[in-house]
């Protein structure tokens, strides 16, 4: 379906980083650079996507990702509609196929989909001609989150290649982890994961990923930690005995970070459970880039929207100068 490659080598859709090349990922990050500045203006709007209709189709609750997409869409001048699963036809039993076809019948241009089932974004993309952006599908991928993580790392280190990045926490249920693994590896970083084996998916080593069961070892190894949210449901489902114990064994604390041979950068995709996977001293401390991640999220999503709409990376600087 990617025979008609658009801006930066993207196809019709952005489903995951597994299927995108390192060059495409770099081009998205490069395109995001000039878009960062739009959000710093007094009037945060350019007409890049004027007249485009974008539906944010969220089958799972999300605050950060949905708002970030919505800002990105609006700052590029698109018309946006948010559809949340609760209260929509979905609860009346409509299938995903029919939801998609009905949206299509209203002549839209793009869909951002967040869905609880892995593969749902691909499923939608295969069935409608609009551009589909995966805003997170089940435990599969969350490509724009990984892109904003990559952009933030590049801002911090000036490069991705050669970095050692360890993703800490609930890997098995994490779409953020999978997208980060693909993205980081394609840009030449080394990737490790760290957590109790009950939260590490089977045969992940075959993806070229090192596995740590002790966070202290991960800290000795890594240049940066990407600390994942530990959901309360995991405790209830028996993956770990308690959040308290999780914090004791895997919590990223200042004391643990101080043992590192160098300065470690700490990322977190949010929302944070302070005192569980990350301590406040770390989250709010000088090594944290958690808020820059959020800022970069809007720029990266602008870049993806712009490129999928047919924009060229080298014209991004020019495009954003247009008057609203």
């Amino acid at each position, binding site marked *: 379906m990617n025979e008609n490659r658009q801006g930066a080598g993207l196809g019709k859709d952005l489903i995951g980083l597994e299927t995108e090349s390192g060059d495409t990922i770099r081009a998205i990050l490069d395109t995001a650079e000039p878009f960062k500045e739009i959000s710093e203006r007094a009037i945060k709007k350019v007409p890049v996507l004027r007249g485009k209709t974008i539906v944010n189709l969220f089958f799972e609750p999300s605050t950060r990702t949905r708002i970030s997409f919505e800002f990105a869409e609006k700052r590029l001048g698109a018309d946006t509609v948010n559809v949340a699963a609760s209260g929509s036809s979905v609860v009346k039993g409509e299938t995903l*196929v029919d939801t998609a076809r009905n949206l299509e019948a209203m002549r839209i241009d793009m869909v951002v989909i967040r869905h609880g*089932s*892995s593969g749902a974004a691909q*499923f939608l993309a295969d069935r409608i001609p609009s551009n589909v952006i995966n805003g997170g*599908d089940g435990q*599969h991928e969350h490509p724009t989150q990984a892109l904003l993580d990559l952009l933030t790392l590049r801002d911090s280190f000036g490069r991705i290649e050669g970095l050692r990045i360890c993703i800490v926490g609930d890997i098995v249920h994490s779409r953020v982890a999978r997208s980060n693994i693909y993205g980081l590896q394609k840009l030449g970083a080394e990737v490790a994961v760290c957590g109790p084996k009950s939260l590490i998916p*089977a045969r992940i080593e*075959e*993806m070229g990923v090192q596995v740590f069961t002790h966070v202290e070892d991960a800290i000795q190894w890594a240049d940066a930690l990407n600390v994942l949210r530990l959901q309360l449901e995991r405790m209830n489902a028996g993956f770990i005995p308690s959040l308290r114990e999780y914090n004791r064994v895997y919590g990223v604390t200042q004391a643990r970070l101080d043992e590192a041979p160098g300065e470690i950068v700490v990322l977190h995709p949010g929302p944070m459970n302070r005192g569980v996977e990350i301590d406040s001293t770390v989250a709010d401390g000088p090594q944290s880039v958690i808020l820059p991640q959020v800022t970069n999220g809007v720029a990266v999503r602008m870049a993806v929207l712009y490129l999928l709409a047919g924009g060229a990376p080298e014209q991004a600087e020019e495009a954003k100068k247009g008057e609203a």
Partner: protein
Amino acid sequence: MSRPLYIHGGRVLDPSLGIDDRAAVLVVDGLIEAVGADVSKPDDAETLDANGLTVSPGLIDVHVHLREPGGEHKEDIATGSRAAIAGGFTTIWAMPNTDPAIDDPAAVGYVRAAGRAVRASRVMPIGAASIGQQGEKMTEIGELVHAGAVAVSDDGFPVRDSGLMRRLLEYTQTFDIPVLQHAEDPGLTRGGVMNEGRVATELGLRGIPNAAEAAMVARDVLLSELTGGHLHVCHVSARQSVDHLRWAKDRGLRVTSEVTPHHLLLTEELVRGYNTQAKVNPPLRLEEDVVAVREALVEGVIDVIATDHAPHHYDEKEREFDDAPFGINGLETAFGLCMRALVDPGHLTLAGLIDRMSCAPARIMGLPTGSLRRGAPADIVLYDPDEKWTVDPARFHSRSRNTPLAGWELTGRIHTTIVGGETRFVAEGDA
């Protein structure tokens, strides 16, 4: 009585008799009267020209889902048994996980009578092992057998409770029927939708480990040893299960098992792209598992091939992977897929395949068919083992089209299927 049937000009292949020769088959009153090169045609006989075809005992499938009652949008007894004869199967055993479950004698009698009325494949009902397949209270197994049940099973679900499984393996000995077990430890499969491993990890799908099956096989083999009951393990998929089955065979236990055509060839790679047609339980596993179950079938550690024919409606498979039901539509592709998996690459001879799909099921289940010996019911299949054909689900006789094999070219095509001396299927174009 109807006229005798004289089948001539074909190659007769019957491993149960050790025959592989150009010969004629004479059927009188629905039974095999004679097989041999020198058998002559009685004056009043109807003739069937088998020139260019191979003539073997009809295939037997001890594991199909016909969905009636309750799931007629997927399949019913009529469409399912017609799919069976189109696939060369003269006998199919119908699993009881319908809605309601086949757990009382009236329901067993219904399936049996409805199957007879269709006049396609012989339909033999399997009774539920527990009431409502709830895994708690044993059904009235004697009553079910009296009504025509040939086995009991809670298939679709495992018999989880070890105590109940023990009682089933003890109690069924009175009636000399097997307990067919869907071997799965639910605590290990919880929420799983495909094989646990690399592909599940990459796709972000919840996995089902080999141990979920093998642990249950190990337990059940020990219970067969304890009780002396006939345990039949359904759809073996994991290489570790084979180890336990070999252990049971070595000890001479009454343990038999089956493997599906899809587990003999396909792997988890087929799930990539969230292909719901490849979503099946037990899941498609790794190449090393495929090799292990294939070798076990060749050695006789696994006794038979059974399809686990599991029809599902188009809409049910046209969904998110997590929400699509498990199952592959198997009857009409089974022979060709087994040719591809076993005979084409030389793992098994054609005689070996006919044994695993006809003679062996009859042998382990005590059926009078699966052989062309004199006096056996005349259940016969005529086929061309070398003919190529392309799988086109739109042409299935089954009401459903859920197969991962659409567009595959297979070798080995069924031409005529005869049940009790009556020709019940003739391939399109043969007239």
